[in-house]
């Protein structure tokens, strides 16, 4: 019984094993901060692309949509090159720190938030446009109104972004280095521990990650229900 990996994983979880807690905490910190930064930049960017007409707008829309599927290892490589000693931002000394992991995840999540919010805001603008013009609103004034009115949709978008950030392994592995106690997060730890044959810890982390993904989806569902009831 004690040799059963699943059993050991559960006991690690239930005893709140220190190294496991530390890994989970760092994962949440990195991904939440990355999503927060991506939202502050991405939502206004998406709304701006929806609101303004400018040369090359079509290219921007296509690029944002395409970057939603950016492979994490490519994002990791880009950030690695930027932050490596010889790179343009090498002086910051961020490579193999949680800061580098946040940057890599921002690169991954930002296009998702911008592209999806652009879509939502544009839909809503189609419905609101005449009323806005009637009220004498400038495009810049329309932006906060649209972002607030799309709040439920954007919350779902935010959860999608967080799901992407917390589940990816390639980018954080490359720029974080999976250093024990410093940059080891759930996904990189699972890869490492599985490789070492330490299945209980890998499985325990897997359970936490899966639970997190379930919670995110439950959250998205509840937000959808709430918005239907609140806004009709």
């Amino acid at each position, binding site marked *: 019984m004690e040799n059963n990996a699943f059993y050991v994983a559960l006991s690690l979880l239930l005893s709140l094993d220190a190294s496991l807690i530390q890994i989970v905490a760092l994962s949440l910190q990195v991904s939440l901060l990355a999503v927060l930064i991506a939202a502050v930049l991405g939502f206004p960017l998406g709304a701006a692309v929806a609101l303004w007409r400018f040369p090359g707008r079509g290219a921007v829309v296509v690029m944002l949509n395409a970057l939603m599927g950016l492979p994490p290892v490519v994002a990791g490589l880009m950030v690695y090159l930027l932050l490596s000693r010889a790179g343009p931002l090498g002086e910051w000394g961020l490579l193999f720190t949680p800061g580098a992991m946040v940057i890599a995840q921002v690169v991954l999540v930002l296009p998702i938030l911008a592209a999806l919010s652009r879509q939502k805001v544009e839909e809503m603008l189609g*419905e*609101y446009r*005449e*009323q806005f*013009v*009637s*009220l*004498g*609103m400038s495009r810049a*004034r329309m932006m906060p*109104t649209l972002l*607030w*009115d799309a709040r*439920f949709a954007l919350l779902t978008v935010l959860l999608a972004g967080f799901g992407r950030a917390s589940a990816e392994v390639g980018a954080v592995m490359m720029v974080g280095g999976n250093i024990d106690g410093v940059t080891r997060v759930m996904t990189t730890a699972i890869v490492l521990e599985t490789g070492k044959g330490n299945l209980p810890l890998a499985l325990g982390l897997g359970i936490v990650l899966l639970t997190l993904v379930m919670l995110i989806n439950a959250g998205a569902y509840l937000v959808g229900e709430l918005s239907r009831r*609140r*806004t*009709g």
Partner: protein
Amino acid sequence: MTSLNAPYFYKSILLPPPALSFQGVAFHHEEKTLLGPCSFTLDGPGPTLVMGPNGAGKSLLLRLAHGLLSPTQGRIIWSDEGTPRQAMVFQQPVLLRRSAVANLRHALAVNSVPRRARAKLALDALERFGLAASAHKPARVLSGGQQQRLALARAWVLSPQVLFLDEPTSALDPAAIKAVEAAVLDFHQRGTRIVMTTHDLHQARRLAGDVLFLSGGKVREHTAADAFFSKPVSREAQAFVSGELVE
């Protein structure tokens, strides 16, 4: 387009509302003439009812007058300097995904009414339009009639000098129609110039001071309501008033 510098413009309401002139205004789209060229002046007491069969260009005329569209030819001129404060109520009210009172506060906010004045103005307007009990309900779950009253309340808080209404009752039941018509007359009595489209002759008889009759994208006549309903001049209007189907 409309700027509302002073929220407390009730004084200005005592002045006669600004007159609206169309001078050879036409609107083309993809080489087709959808409206005009037409010339007329709305300077009477009103309310002005814009009538005509479907596709005559009534909504288009309203959108041009309100500035939602620009004419491809001709000029639209107001008697006042610049453009007057104006609002529009649409056939299908466009309400924000917020509470009823938040919809009004938003309209006041975008018109630079100071924050501390907004709540009271908004609640007073809801009270006037019989929506006080629904103030904190999400606007978009209100009934059709309540939504249209909320749209009227939103126009009311802006104290427009001119109010455009595009078939505001066509989707409503009789009780709701009555409430909207009463509100239109409230605006009229407050000195707002009313320009409203309808295809309902009975409604026009109840509300109109003068009638602007359109068919086929042309203004066929512009006469006082009494004259229009008793002896319309144009052949199209004669047919319309006598209940024939007009192209």
